[in-house]
């Protein structure tokens, strides 16, 4: 990989050698460079976890908030300054576990942000407990006899919520992953990309090898406009499809906010005006 403006010199990366996160980091830097993204207008928002450390290793603005709470600030950043490109990126536990409620309602809003989830099917940073996407039977120090909960299916849920862009990739299929994530970033509205990311240390089941064997790429016959088909694909379990499951246009959250309906200027660029307040105060004199 060549150098990009997003490279951060001399940072001490805290991930384990061989971790799937490195691949994602490289992919992200490349994509952003290829898209000629303006680093001054690009904000990463993340939570807490191994995945959530990614903005620390990129040269970019970031808001590295609380575990599970990447999406609310991301929505707010975009609404406060719609000129920014906002990427909310974190782990599966962060986005689908602790942050599950924001996942639901952010999709309902359809803000023009990209939501990238490193899905290693485990809690990496806290040393190997089950995540919402862990498969049944997955054994951990807490799930001693194996996971008994139905794995969370982020794609099916996003489709159920009529998300405007729903995709899944595997970091090991680099070119495919790049292509899909690029489209996600370019998509206007909320875009979910769930990335299969092997955790070498705590997930000995869902390895690079496993993902290679248990996934396949959606082909041209898949119509991403068809919601029911997309759902059907998302619920396949024998082999897990990769690609863009569902994609359609709808107005973004920011565009529809009353404050932006008449006037597209970001609220931070508007200068303070006392008149409307004075008019309101005057009404209380009647």
């Amino acid at each position, binding site marked *: 990989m060549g150098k990009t403006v997003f490279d951060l010199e001399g940072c001490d990366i805290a991930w384990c050698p061989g971790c799937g996160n490195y691949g994602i980091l490289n992919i992200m830097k490349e994509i952003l460079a290829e898209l000629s993204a303006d680093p001054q207008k690009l904000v990463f928002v993340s939570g807490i976890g191994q995945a959530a450390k990614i903005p620390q290793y990129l040269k970019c*603005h970031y*808001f*590295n*908030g609380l575990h599970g709470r990447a999406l*609310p600030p991301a929505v707010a*950043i975009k609404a406060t*300054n719609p000129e920014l490109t906002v990427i909310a990126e974190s782990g599966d536990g962060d986005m689908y576990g602790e942050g599950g409620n924001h996942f639901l309602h952010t999709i309902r809003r359809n803000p023009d942000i990209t939501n990238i989830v490193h899905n290693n099917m485990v809690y990496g940073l806290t040393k190997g407990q089950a995540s919402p996407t862990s498969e049944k039977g997955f054994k951990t120090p807490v799930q001693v006899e194996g996971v008994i909960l139905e794995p969370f299916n982020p794609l099916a849920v996003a489709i159920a919520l009529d998300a405007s862009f729903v995709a899944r990739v595997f970091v090991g299929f680099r070119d495919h992953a790049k292509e899909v994530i690029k489209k996600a970033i370019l998509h206007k509205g909320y875009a979910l990309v769930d990335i299969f990311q092997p955790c070498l240390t705590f997930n000995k089941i869902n390895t690079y090898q496993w993902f290679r064997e248990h996934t396949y790429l959606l082909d041209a016959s898949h119509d991403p406009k068809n919601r029911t088909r997309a759902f059907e694909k998302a619920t396949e379990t024998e082999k897990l499809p990769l690609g863009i499951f569902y994609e359609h246009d709808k107005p973004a959250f920011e565009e529809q906010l009353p404050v932006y309906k008449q*006037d597209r200027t970001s609220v*931070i660029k*508007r200068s303070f005006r006392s008149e409307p307040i004075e008019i309101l105060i005057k009404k209380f004199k009647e």
Partner: protein
Amino acid sequence: VALPWQTIWVSKERRSYVSFERTFENDVSIVLAGEAGQGIQTIETILARILKRAGLYVFGTKEYMSRVRGGTNSTEIRVASRPVTAFVDRIDLCVPLDDKALPYLERRLSEKTLIVGEQQALKSSREILDVPFTKIATEIGNAIFANTVAAGFLAGLFNVDAAIILEVITRIFSRKGDEVLEKNRQAAQRGIDLAREACAKYAINVDIRKNPVVVGQVMMSGHDAVALGAAAGGCNFVASYPMSPSTGVLTLLAQHAAELGIVVEQAEDEIAAMNMGLGSWYAGGRAMVTTSGGGFALMVEGLSLAGCIESPMVIHLAQRPGPATGLPTRTEQGDLELALHAGHGEFPRIIFAPGTLQDAFICTAKAFYLADKYQVPVFILTDQFLLDSYYNISEFPECPKEIEHFIIKTTSDYKRYARAQNGISPRGIPGFGEGIVCVDSDEHDEGGYITEDNKVRTAMVNKRLKKISDLGEDAMDLELYRGKDFKKLVIGWGSTFHTILEALHRRGKSDEEAFLFLTQVYPLPDLLIDYLRKAKKVVCIENNATGQLAKLIRRETGFEVHRKILKYSGLPFTVEELVQNI
């Protein structure tokens, strides 16, 4: 930098007009009571506007159940020839709307109370001035006009000119179409006629001097004052989740979002609301959340995040009785300690507890300024009583013409947490300047990157804690009322202000008793201890069960107040009970 609008924070004289000497004739307390949804609020709105328009001082407040229909609620409207701003127990004019109302108000009725209502519906053995509001309304065309008949009648009792009454009726109903308006005018007129008749017949004489200055004054509620204060503070982002009694602020700002330039979003939960607020400040917005204790409890982690990333934040915490769901529509001052200690780890904050509507406006506006300047969360602690009360305000604070921002344009070597003498590093935002802006909930170095270096850690804690060690000019002063040579010093904070002050006036011992009021509850003003030491007896009045301010004072100064007057029934103090208990 000169702040043209800073002038609005000053001047303790703004309350000097409050004087409570009066005779019965000059100060009448009307209480409307009935079921939720029965029309109390309609009568109240019409009546209060008429009375003020006529030049009468008006104060209104309500107590109501957590239900949409049924139950029993009541509203008090005080009408006077001088400013009135406090809640009294006494009822001069009682307007029961159903048969549960009189038994409900029983304790507050005296021989002097005049009861006005529809005898038949009330099923009471008391003497009631029977006015057939509903019958008349039906004659006009619909029972719904009964409220206007009642409002007209009551206004009539106060000798308000018919022209004024009809002017206000017209203003209120003109949007509803000609027919509705006309019927309401008729209804009001019938009410007025009945009042004239009754006054003549029964020699009812309500004698309150009218004052033309009142006519053009602002009359608003605590909800309005906080919401407008936010706007005046330059608020441009509100994310909140509905919760009584905080929702009024959200609603008012939502209603005017477009013209005020505010992003208003109902969040999926309070956690989201708080984290959205922080995101907005990060991006250069000026955000507020408005919530109540239970909702704020969910923001505690987010508050700690504000502390860690040194984000400004404005929190309107509208208190109601807890714990848990408690009494959703009632009042209490039970969350001071929570506001003070919320958030894991250690970081600074500022807490305001306005006592007047002017203060509610000022504190809220000022909260944005301080949050931005000191990069700390600032609380406005109100409660249901303050928020649901309204009165006319002789001098409403002026809206600032400009707002001072503390955002800098970044250079390429920008570091969000650069060392700073006073702990306050210049705050940049993404997209404004050459630098990158990195904020992290983990402990971080100057650049905002994760660090585990224990020296950097210690330095960062020191930096954060230092920020509000000197608020200087920006601090809100203590306010001392009445005798400087006091022996007894009464302390209060927040919504009890007017009630305490009126009670002290009524007690009349102006040389011996003084009132020390804290708008800025934290950090406690330095001068506080001097006042405390000077008093022979210090009495702390709080609308809670454990005396949270008293505890804070002791923690900070070692001083133990001599007596606490506490109330935690869900109702505010009345002037009468304080007159007796102080």
